[in-house]
């Protein structure tokens, strides 16, 4: 099978093109810039549009315009750029526009640094813009998934008429791994709601306005129902050795790769640990966590943040199992060794 060796950021563009995306609007930022650079190279070659926008604000609004026409379209950035895009994402959620944003997280707050971090979790998963909305959040942890999940993002976006964010970090964006190209999407659903400059759609309107409170509440309720359907149908996760695990490790993105190594090492030392990695952060694998809490003694969550996903794990656990957090911030990546050490301490405590 043909394997191509590429960066996570490049793979996102490959996935997008195979997912039928034909327009890219973006503004450069480390560590996401290769996405724009790769898009600049390939989009024109597949009959698509690439445009470097004047800002992230402009980029997301260009995406909003293109999505209004039914075109599959994307943008990508990192933390500071995502902060700027939030208004546009809120508008898109309100107008129910399908579009894809890739966030290659870096260190914050403020200008922070360009090292990998996971401090955008709250602003992405909780809907960092205004209003009662959710976006679907996919969290790849390898280059193959950067390709596959970005492709999947376009299907999910169209299926639910909702923005989808691919949330990853500087390491997954910058690292190279072999990738097997997936099949391209060739069949697209009709989008009767678009405004595409034809008689058929001339009566359509793309808008997030509902002036009357009752109408806007109705619109909000409809959105909440959609989010519920998404929660019921689109949860994705990966588990490793969870059946007999006394301690369940949880992490997403690059941290889950470290945890994978930790599990291997720990198992070889006879420690019964397992890994639950959320692939979707919204919807969150709440049911799975609850199911595992019946057999596991403790949940151990690691993130490169101040524990933003940890809050969601605790919410899911409803106090029924203890949970511990171990994290780093500022671009420091936890090592296999230090997490193993933590685990050994935990197992000693559990014995007592």
């Amino acid at each position, binding site marked *: 099978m043909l*394997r191509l060796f590429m960066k996570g950021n490049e793979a996102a563009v490959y996935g997008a093109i195979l997912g039928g995306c034909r327009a890219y609007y973006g503004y450069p930022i480390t560590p996401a810039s290769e996405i724009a650079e790769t898009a600049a190279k390939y989009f024109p070659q597949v009959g698509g549009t690439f445009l470097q926008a004047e800002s992230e604000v402009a980029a997301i609004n260009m995406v909003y315009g293109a999505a209004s026409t039914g075109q599959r379209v994307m943008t990508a950035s990192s933390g500071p750029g995502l902060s700027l895009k939030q208004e546009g994402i809120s508008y898109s959620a309100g107008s129910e526009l399908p579009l894809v944003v890739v966030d290659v997280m870096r260190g914050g707050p403020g200008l922070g640094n360009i090292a990998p971090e996971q401090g955008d979790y709250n602003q992405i998963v909780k809907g960092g813009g205004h209003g009662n909305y959710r976006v679907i959040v996919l969290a790849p942890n390898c280059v193959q998934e950067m390709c596959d999940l970005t492709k999947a993002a376009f299907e999910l976006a169209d299926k639910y008429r909702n923005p989808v964010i691919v949330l990853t970090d500087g390491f997954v964006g910058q690292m190279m791994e072999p990738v097997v190209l997936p099949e391209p999407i060739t069949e697209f659903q009709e989008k009767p709601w678009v405004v595409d400059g034809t008689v058929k759609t001339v009566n359509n309107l793309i808008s997030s306005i509902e002036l009357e409170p009752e109408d806007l509440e109705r619109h909000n309720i409809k959105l909440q129902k959609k989010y519920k359907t998404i929660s019921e149908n689109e949860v994705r996760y990966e588990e490793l050795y969870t059946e007999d695990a006394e301690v369940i490790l949880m992490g997403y993105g690059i941290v889950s790769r470290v945890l994978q190594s930790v599990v291997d090492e720990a198992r070889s030392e006879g420690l019964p640990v397992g890994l639950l990695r959320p692939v979707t952060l919204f919807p969150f694998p709440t049911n799975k966590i609850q199911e595992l809490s019946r057999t596991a003694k403790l949940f151990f969550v690691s993130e490169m943040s101040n524990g933003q996903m940890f809050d969601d794990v605790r919410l899911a656990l409803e106090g029924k199992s203890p949970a511990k957090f171990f994290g780093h911030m500022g671009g420091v990546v936890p090592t296999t060794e230090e997490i193993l050490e933590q685990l050994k301490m935990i197992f000693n405590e559990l014995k007592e």
Partner: protein
Amino acid sequence: MLKEILKKPESFYDTFFRKPGANPESTHYCPGCGHGVIHKLIAEAMDDFGIRDRTIMISPVGCSVFAYYYFDCGNVQAAHGRAPAVGTGIKRALPNSIVISYQGDGDLAGIGGNNILQAANRGENITVIFVNNAIYGMTGSQMAPTTLIGQRTTTTPLGRSAKNEGYPLRISELLATLEAPVYIERVAISDAKHVLKTRKAIRKAIQNQIEGKGFSLVEILSPCPTGWGMSPSEANKWVDEAMCKYFKLGVYKDVNGSAVNNNTPAGNIAITKDEIVSLLGSNKPKDEKKFVKPEADENYKNPRIKIAGFGGQGVLLLGRLLSESAMLLDYHTTWLPSYGPEMRGGTANCHVNISDKRIGSPLVSTPDVLFAMNLPSLDKFENEVRENGVIFINTSMVNRKVRRKDVETVYIPATRIADEVGQTKATNVVLIGAFAEYTKLLSFESVLSAVKNIVRKKEFWETNETALKKGMEYVRNNRAG
């Protein structure tokens, strides 16, 4: 004439069904407001050009946020100030549509200033109708970027002062300095004569787009009786006497251009799997040649590798060569670089994993193999190497021995050998040759193939092949024991 203009155009909805409340026949604008008149002029032009079906109207944020109540065409409502960006996305996806961006002065000249500037500068083939009423109507008469000096608003209760708020922005003049726009005119709608001129300007701005000429903008000085606290007739008079004095009417730009980006490709071009795959895989190995996997010595299986040196020494490339060669031998592999500005001029390092099994952390904190391409790298990373690990030392750049006794060492003057081959840059190829020979993890063929995939210029292939052979040879001849 005026009467004829004010008749309901076809491109207006018969009843404004989207408008909530009791009066679906009348607009939501105040009596004497300029927006209603301007809407009708646009709709009438849409009728006459026969473009209703392919017109997409962008409603801004401002009093005209509900423009979509009225225009019987495709409608998109945009965030405050972003209509030109939204219009860009629409027009690029649908080059045959007619995109009209309708914006107030707060929207266009205030919050969206950069968006209009950049869209104009790109020469987007769209029509912008810019309604300058010198105030924020919708939010209750606050100052706009176009508010006149001395004009009282709710946020300039004593009148706008140049000292505190600066001068009113002349958008038409500003945009007319740009290369790309083809047509920019400022008009007014204070009386019938001016309305006729406005009608003509709007038509021209739309016609330009139909003909694919490029970016056109009509700035319309427009009364806001409510915001100004005037009667409709006083407001019209104020447009004529106060506004026209500062904002001079006239054509600021009218060139016979053709749109800078008029020939952007149309949306979703069908493209086959084979086309996409061959395009995406175009610069990558196409031959799915099978390489024979050598049997690596036990101590060197599944190595976690760290490579360190100066930026420019080919540190990252050595990592890629290791990974790509391993990939060709069907190993799992990861390559993780140090990235960003720290690399400029300074030190570079990268982490490579090669394994029979799926790889967890790509991060190498306890390397099995270290490549020290210069002295600082050896100083920094010597102690991280695991017991019985291997350190490859580029002795051309490192003038000391490894201090640890519990590791294996491979000393090789890689830079000197590369120089002898005639290409200093091939230092990393010499080193990978040494690695392949020493560990038996990679084969000569797999490395050579990886070199050819990465080093695009064919004229370097031969020297690289020699460098690879020399690296292998050096280890074969100098291996202890």
